[in-house]
């Protein structure tokens, strides 16, 4: 009988707050990140990038570069595999341009040399002839009839006839009759909203060290959220067998979704193969901005009808996602998340994925949901204001609950939205007085969360300690969470467990650390692997006692006879069972592989106070409270950290962060001076409330927490600023000049 350690209360280790195992390494500089790897004979690489938004590549002449002392190899698209299809082709085309440079910063060639300085000089010596093509960087302009076509035939079958070829995917869902619903409403508000592309802003630029021999065997060290995905993509692009490339994930200095794909790794491998030397490649910050994946910019229309008692009668949304020069803008998820918090009789949502001459968008923390929430929750706030209704009452009245039908189809299982709303309403923040010039905003947010392919292996040591190997890079303190969950099952102290992110040759396949899946899926697999080890430990005890294994149970690190009939045996501690495990049946391990399907969705409610300087339009967020359902917080400090991190990134997105393109289609702010991520002094203390509505799909009730925290901030901050200035803010970012214009529009 399989052991089942499922529980939602009476934890010994889960829910405590021990130090993270990687903490000392990180604060002392001992941790090895992407750029920290070296190898004997290593070369340094640099990438030649297009200065043009859209241009045909006529000729690449690397002769001057190759003639330089210390230059060992130059690669272009011709050095990569042909015949790829689908997303693998898209990623390769983004990693190294084929016939056309599709955006400012698109890679066209790369060089490896004996020093980074020589590589940089050689890169400049590569000569590229271009024929300029018309470009478009704005989502609405890219959909217009006269827009230049970025790549004909890129649209998939979802796109209805008659749309511009730049519209490459289309999504539509809903139920009921929205027109009938709007007719029932006492007030209908329809508004247009826009958001700009923002970057994940991870502190660590992409970096890797690659070695690939003529025998088709390779080694790759890189910072990534998912090294099996790197392995699969790189092997395909280099034309080698997947298993012959061993990929090791470094410590990661932030990813937020932006490191779920690849940008430089196949280039290092191709250069290595050509030069027959290890090749290190590190992006500059300007390259990260120009050529990695920011999120989509959006153009959105939302229409909601409400009765004077606050009942929403109908809701409709159109969401246009600018995804760069490739398909992938998250139009489905944006549309699906938009109205997810609400139980609607009549709802209809449409999403468009639109190509432009910008870098290929990448995932950014709950892709699409923050923008959708901005549009929807702004309209709800405006309806509340105009109808004189309390924003909490209205949200509670219409809230999605267990058994109601989601806006995108399925019936909700056990969910915690109402609990977050009630906890937020009860928080002292909501009733605290506001000062002159301040406004308060609230918003709900939703994210799906994900399971995904997962493998975990656990091995006992002779001294009774345990090592866990997981395949999901630790982007949020997950090694601590894994050790806590294993400690709970094994009944040994947290400190006696070491959790390692295994390389691709040391463990079975693991999907990327994305979709807030790690604590859920790798956590579930860790619990199952630990249970398998405990079963074996019980078997060894049964053999020692010469009783049936069913007559042994495990409690707090001890094998115990299950009752008087099992015999009067003193409990055996785990160390007594592992000490001689070699002689009692061999090493004691546990492992688990599955694609768990029970990831529980997560909702959050945020409260924000913003203060606006009426003379300059500058906004300061003065108070912020995050209330979110975590299912079960395994390590509450890291759950709170995720809540605060989502809010902090949301503040930047709402107030000052944006990709700024010139008329020439070039990115104008490829650096942290003019791409304005909040600094510490821009942020208030971000208060957190962890709500725990257990997820039945996880043994301990875990729901993912990493992404939901960034869903409400754009809307909550926009509502706070709108209420502070008395004008509805419909465009992000709410930079000072924009707020000042809004104030002037009110005055005159």
């Amino acid at each position, binding site marked *: 009988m399989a052991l089942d350690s499922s529980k939602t209360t009476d934890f010994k280790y889960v829910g405590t707050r021990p130090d993270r195992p990687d903490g000392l390494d990180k604060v002392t500089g001992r941790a090895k990140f992407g750029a920290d790897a070296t190898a004997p004979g290593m070369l340094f690489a640099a990438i030649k990038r297009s200065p043009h938004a859209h241009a045909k590549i006529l000729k690449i002449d690397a002769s001057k570069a190759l003639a330089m002392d210390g230059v060992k190899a130059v690669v272009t698209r011709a050095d990569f595999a042909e015949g790829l299809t689908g997303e693998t082709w898209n990623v390769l085309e983004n990693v190294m341009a084929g016939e056309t440079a599709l955006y400012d910063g698109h890679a066209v060639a790369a060089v490896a040399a004996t020093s980074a300085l020589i590589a940089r000089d050689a890169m400049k010596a590569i000569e590229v002839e271009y024929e300029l093509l018309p470009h478009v960087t704005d989502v609405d302009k890219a959909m217009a009839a006269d827009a230049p076509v970025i790549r004909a035939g890129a649209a998939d079958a979802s796109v209805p006839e008659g749309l511009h070829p730049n519209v490459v995917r289309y999504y539509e869902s809903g139920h009921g009759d929205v027109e009938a619903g709007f007719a029932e409403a006492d007030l209908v508000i329809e508004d247009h909203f826009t958001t700009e592309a923002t970057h994940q802003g991870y502190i660590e630029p992409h970096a890797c060290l690659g070695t690939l021999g003529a025998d088709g065997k390779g080694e790759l060290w890189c910072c990534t959220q998912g090294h099996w995905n790197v392995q699969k993509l790189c092997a395909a692009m280099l034309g080698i067998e997947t298993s012959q490339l061993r990929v090791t994930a470094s410590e990661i200095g932030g990813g937020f979704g932006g490191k779920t794909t690849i940008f430089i790794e196949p280039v290092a491998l191709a250069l290595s193969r050509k030069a027959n030397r290890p090749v290190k490649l590190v992006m500059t910050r300007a390259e990260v901005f120009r050529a990695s994946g920011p999120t989509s910019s959006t153009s959105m229309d939302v229409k909601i009808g409400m009765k004077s008692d606050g009942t929403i009668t109908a809701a409709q949304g159109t969401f246009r996602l600018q995804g760069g020069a490739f398909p992938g803008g998250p139009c489905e998820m944006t549309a699906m998340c938009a109205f997810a918090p609400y139980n609607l009789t009549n709802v209809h949502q449409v999403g468009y994925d639109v190509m432009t001459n910008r870098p290929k968008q990448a995932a950014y923390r709950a892709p699409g949901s923050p923008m959708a929430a901005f549009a929807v929750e702004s309209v709800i706030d405006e309806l509340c204001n105009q109808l004189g209704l309390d924003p909490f009452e209205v949200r509670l009245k219409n809230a999605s609950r267990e058994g109601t039908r989601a806006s995108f189809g399925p019936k909700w299982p056990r969910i915690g939205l109402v609990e977050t709303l009630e906890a937020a309403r009860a928080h002292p923040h909501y009733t605290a007085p506001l000062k002159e010039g301040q406004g308060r905003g609230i918003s709900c947010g939703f994210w799906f969360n994900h399971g995904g392919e997962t493998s975990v292996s656990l091995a006992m040591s002779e001294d009774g300690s345990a090592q866990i190997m997981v395949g999901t890079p630790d982007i949020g303190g997950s090694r601590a969470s894994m050790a806590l969950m294993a400690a709970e099952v094994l009944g040994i102290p947290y400190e006696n467990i070491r959790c390692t992110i295994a390389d691709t040759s040391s463990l079975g396949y693991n999907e990327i650390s994305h979709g807030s899946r790690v604590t859920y899926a790798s956590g579930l697999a860790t619990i199952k692997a630990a249970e398998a080890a405990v079963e074996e430990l019980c078997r060894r005890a049964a053999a020692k006692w010469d009783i049936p294994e069913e007559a042994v149970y495990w409690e707090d690190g001890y094998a115990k006879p299950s009752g008087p009939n099992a015999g009067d045996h003193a409990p055996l501690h785990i160390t007594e069972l592992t000490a001689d495990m070699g002689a009692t049946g061999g090493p004691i391990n546990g492992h688990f592989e599955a694609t768990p399907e029970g990831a529980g969705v997560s909702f959050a409610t945020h409260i924000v106070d913003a203060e606006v300087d009426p003379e300059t339009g500058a906004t300061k967020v003065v108070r912020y409270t995050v209330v979110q359902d975590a299912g079960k917080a395994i390590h509450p400090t890291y759950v709170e950290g995720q809540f605060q991190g989502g809010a902090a990134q949301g503040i930047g997105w709402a107030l*000052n962060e944006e990709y700024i393109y010139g008329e020439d289609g070039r990115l104008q702010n490829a650096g942290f001076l003019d791409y304005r991520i909040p600094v510490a002094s821009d942020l208030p203390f971000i208060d957190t409330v962890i709500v725990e509505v257990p997820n039945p799909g996880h043994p301990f009730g875990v729901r993912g927490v990493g992404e939901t925290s960034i869903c409400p901030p754009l809307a909550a901050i926009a509502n706070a600023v709108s209420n502070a200035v008395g004008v509805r803010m419909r465009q992000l970012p709410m930079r000072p000049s924009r707020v000042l214009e809004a104030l002037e529009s009110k005055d005159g």
Partner: protein
Amino acid sequence: MQYFKPATFEEASALAAGAEGITRFLAGGTDVLVQLRSDLVTPDVLIDIKAIPGTHDITRTEDGGWRLGVAVTGAEMSEHPDLGRDWPGVVEAMDLIGSTQVQGRATPIGNLCNASPAADSVPAMIAAGAVLSVVGPDGARDIPVEEVPAGPGKTTLKKGEIATALTLPPRGAQGGDAYLRFIPRTEMDIAVVGCAINLTVEGEVITSARMALGAVAPTAVVVHAAADALVGRTLDDAALKALTDLAEASCNPIDDKRGTVKFRTHTAGVLARRVAQIAYDRAKGAKA
């Protein structure tokens, strides 16, 4: 690229006078090295002046002013026990630049000679009446700070001329200066508009006034008419209104990614009012 680390200003000047191509002087390097790394300016000759004796000294002049060596950093200014009591606006303007780490390297004279229109310390130095000392092939000369920048990235210094020190005049009794900038964030940012004012008073009445604006024209702007608007008056609403109008009228900005003409012009007026109030209060005895 050639790198030199001379021991005297004469040697530095001779190196610069004889250099071919692009020459840059290296003090803190917070502009020079950043521009080098980002491919904006790759010097042919780099002359490191930090090893020249006295370049880190902050000293009282005989008449009660202050002399800052060419490699004096923002951190050295902020940590000086007396400098900030005389010229709080100058010290604060310098202290706004960059991070704590950058403050340990960045110098006000480098900020001046980099000739960015948005340089924070420059309007404050202009308002204070600071003077830059240089030596060159034709000997030594003193230049009022407002005459140093010639346009974005350009100065009026001649080939072979090198800055040696900055002199701030005596503060005197009943004086106060202040600087504010507008940035979208709270720090680690570049001025969209900057404004400095230096006042003296007798009782409530303003007896002298100098105002300078940054980031609203190709170089920092001296608003000479500020004296006409303020001298002989108290800082009442009418004076503040006059100052606002003057500041707005003195702007000749551009639209760019950092701000619009309209926003910069409007905000120059807002800052002028706020800065004037701080300088006025300081002149009347408020602690900085």
